C-alpha cells in the first residue's frame, strides 16, 4: 500500500531509519496457547503522532507493554533508539522509562495522594529539585491539561476525563521524548474526548514529543494521527496516513474503518448453531 505524504511532515525530507524512534521487526508473541503477534513489523517515526488501531483483542495494549519492556517478546526485536528493549538490563530499562511517559486506560493515579502529589511523584522520585521548582513544574503541567484548579483534589473526587488529564500531566512531568497512550478516549463524554484529542496533538507539537496512541476510535484517532497502523490477526494489515486507510479497499480495513459487523473479522465468537443451542441440542 502506498504511503502518502503525512500531515505536517517535511516534504523534502526522505524519512530514513534514523528518523524512527522505535522499530519493531518480526515480532512474535503468544499468551498461553493464543498467538497475539506473528511476524509483526512496524516503525514509529520521531516527532509524529502514530496510531495503532485494530479490533478488540488484537493486542494493542500488549504492544505498549512490549514497547516498554513490561513483557518480553517470544521472538523478534523491539528497537528503541537502536537499543533492543528485550535485552536491556533492569537499570538500563528504568533509565529508558524515565524518558517515556505512559497514559494508562484508567489513569492509574495513586489513590492515596492528591492531584498535586500525583503529578509531583516522578519529580520527587527521580530528582532533587527544590520544592519551589517542583511546584512550578506541577502547576505548569496541570495548567497545560486545564486542571490547575483541581490540584488539591483526591483521585476519587475526579471524573474519568479529569483523572485521565491528571495522568497526562503526570506523564509529561519529566518532559519525556516518547509518550504512549493506551485507549485514551474510552468512556469519555464528547467534551472530555475533544479536549484529550486536542491535547495529544497540541502537546506533541508544542513539546516536540513522539506519541503512540493505541485506540479503536476511528474518527478521533484519524483527526490527529500522522501515521496509522491497523493490526489484525497478529500482523499489520494496513498502514499509512488516515486518508490512506479510508481509501484502502482491503476487506479488513473497510470493515474496521466503516464499523461493519460482517467481514473478515467475525462479530460472533465461534459458537454452535444458534437454533440448535436454543433447543438444547448442542451437547
Amino acid at each position: 500500500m502506498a504511503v502518502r505524504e503525512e500531515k505536517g511532515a517535511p516534504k523534502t525530507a526522505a524519512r530514513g531509519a534514523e528518523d524512527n524512534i522505535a522499530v519493531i521487526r518480526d515480532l512474535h508473541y503468544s499468551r498461553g496457547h493464543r498467538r497475539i503477534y506473528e511476524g509483526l513489523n512496524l516503525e514509529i517515526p520521531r516527532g509524529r503522532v502514530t496510531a495503532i488501531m485494530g479490533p478488540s483483542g488484537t493486542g494493542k495494549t500488549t504492544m505498549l507493554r512490549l514497547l516498554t519492556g513490561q513483557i518480553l517478546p517470544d521472538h523478534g526485536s523491539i528497537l528503541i533508539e537502536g537499543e533492543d528493549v528485550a535485552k536491556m538490563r533492569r537499570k538500563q530499562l528504568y533509565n529508558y522509562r524515565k524518558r517515556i511517559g505512559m497514559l494508562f486506560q484508567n489513569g492509574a493515579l495513586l489513590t492515596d495522594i492528591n492531584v498535586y502529589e500525583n503529578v509531583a511523584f516522578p519529580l520527587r522520585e527521580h530528582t532533587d529539585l527544590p520544592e519551589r521548582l517542583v511546584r512550578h513544574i506541577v502547576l505548569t503541567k496541570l495548567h497545560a491539561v486545564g486542571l490547575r484548579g483541581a490540584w488539591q483534589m483526591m483521585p476519587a473526587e475526579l471524573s474519568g476525563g479529569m483523572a485521565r488529564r491528571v495522568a497526562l500531566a503526570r506523564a509529561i512531568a519529566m518532559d519525556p521524548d516518547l509518550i504512549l497512550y493506551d485507549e485514551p478516549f474510552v468512556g469519555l463524554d464528547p467534551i472530555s474526548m475533544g479536549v484529550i484529542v486536542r491535547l495529544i496533538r497540541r502537546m506533541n507539537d508544542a513539546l516536540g514529543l513522539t506519541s503512540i496512541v493505541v485506540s479503536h476510535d476511528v474518527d478521533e484517532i484519524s483527526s490527529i494521527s500522522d501515521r496509522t497502523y491497523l493490526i489484525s490477526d497478529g500482523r499489520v494489515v494496513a498502514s499509512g496516513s488516515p486518508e490512506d486507510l479510508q481509501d484502502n479497499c482491503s476487506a479488513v480495513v473497510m470493515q474496521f474503518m466503516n464499523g461493519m459487523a460482517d467481514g473478515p473479522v467475525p462479530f460472533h465468537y465461534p459458537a454452535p448453531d444458534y437454533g440448535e443451542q436454543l433447543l438444547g441440542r448442542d451437547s
Partner: protein
Amino acid sequence: MKRIFQDIWYSVQDFLQTFGSSQLFLVRILAGVPAAFLRPGLIIKQIHGSGVLSLAIIGISGFFVGMVLSLQAYNSLARFGATESLGVLAALALTRELGPVVTALLFAGRAGTALASEIGLMRATDQLSGMEMMAVDPVRRVVVPRFIGGVIAMPLLAAIFSAMGLFGAWLEGVMLLGVDEGAFWQQMRSQVDVYDDVLAGILKSFVFGIAASLLAVFEGYNSIPTAEGVSRATTRTVVLTALAVLVLNFMLTAVLIGEV
C-alpha cells in the same frame, strides 16, 4: 486413588513454589531496607497505618483477655489457696504467650488484611504498573515501607496488649475479686524475669511481625488483579498468618525454653 495422590502432589508443589517465591520476595525486600530508612516519612506513615490504627482493637482485646484470664485463674487458684499468685500468672501468660500470639492474630485480621488488599487493589488498578512505567520500583516504594512498618509496629502492639491485659487482670482480680494488691504486684515483680519472659515475648512478637508483614505484602503483591483475586489474597493472608504464627510460636517456645 491415583487422582488423590496427583492432587496431593500438586498441592505440595504449589506450596513449595509459593514458599520459595515468598523467600525470594523477602530477599528483594531486605535488599531495599537500607534505602527505605533514608526516607523515614514513608515508614512512619506505615507505622501509623499498621500500628496506630490497630491500637483500639489491640487495647480492647488485651483488656478483656486480661480480665477473663484473671477470672479463670482466680477460680482455679482459689482451690489451692494461691490467689496471691494471680498477678504473676497473668503477667507470665501475657508476656510470654498471649501478648505476642493474640496480637499477631489480631494484626493479621486488621493490618494484614489492609496491607494485602491495599497492595492488591494497587495491582488491579494499574498503580503498580504505573510506578514501574515511571521507573519507580514498586517493591522499594510500596512494599518495603509497609513491611518495615509492620515489623516495627508488632512488638509495640504486643507490649500495649500485655499492658492492657495486666490492667484488665488487676481490675478483675484486685478490684472485683478482692485479691491482695500488694501480693498481686510483688509476686509479679519477683517472678517475672526481664530476659526470660519479657524479652522472649518481644523476640516472639518481632518474629511474628516479620512473618505477618511478609505474608500480607507478598499475598497483596502477587494477587490476581481482579476483585476475586484481591479477595482471595486477603483471605489467604489471614489464614496463612494465623497458621504461621501458631507454628512459629511452638518452635520459638521450644527453642527459648530449651526443651521439646
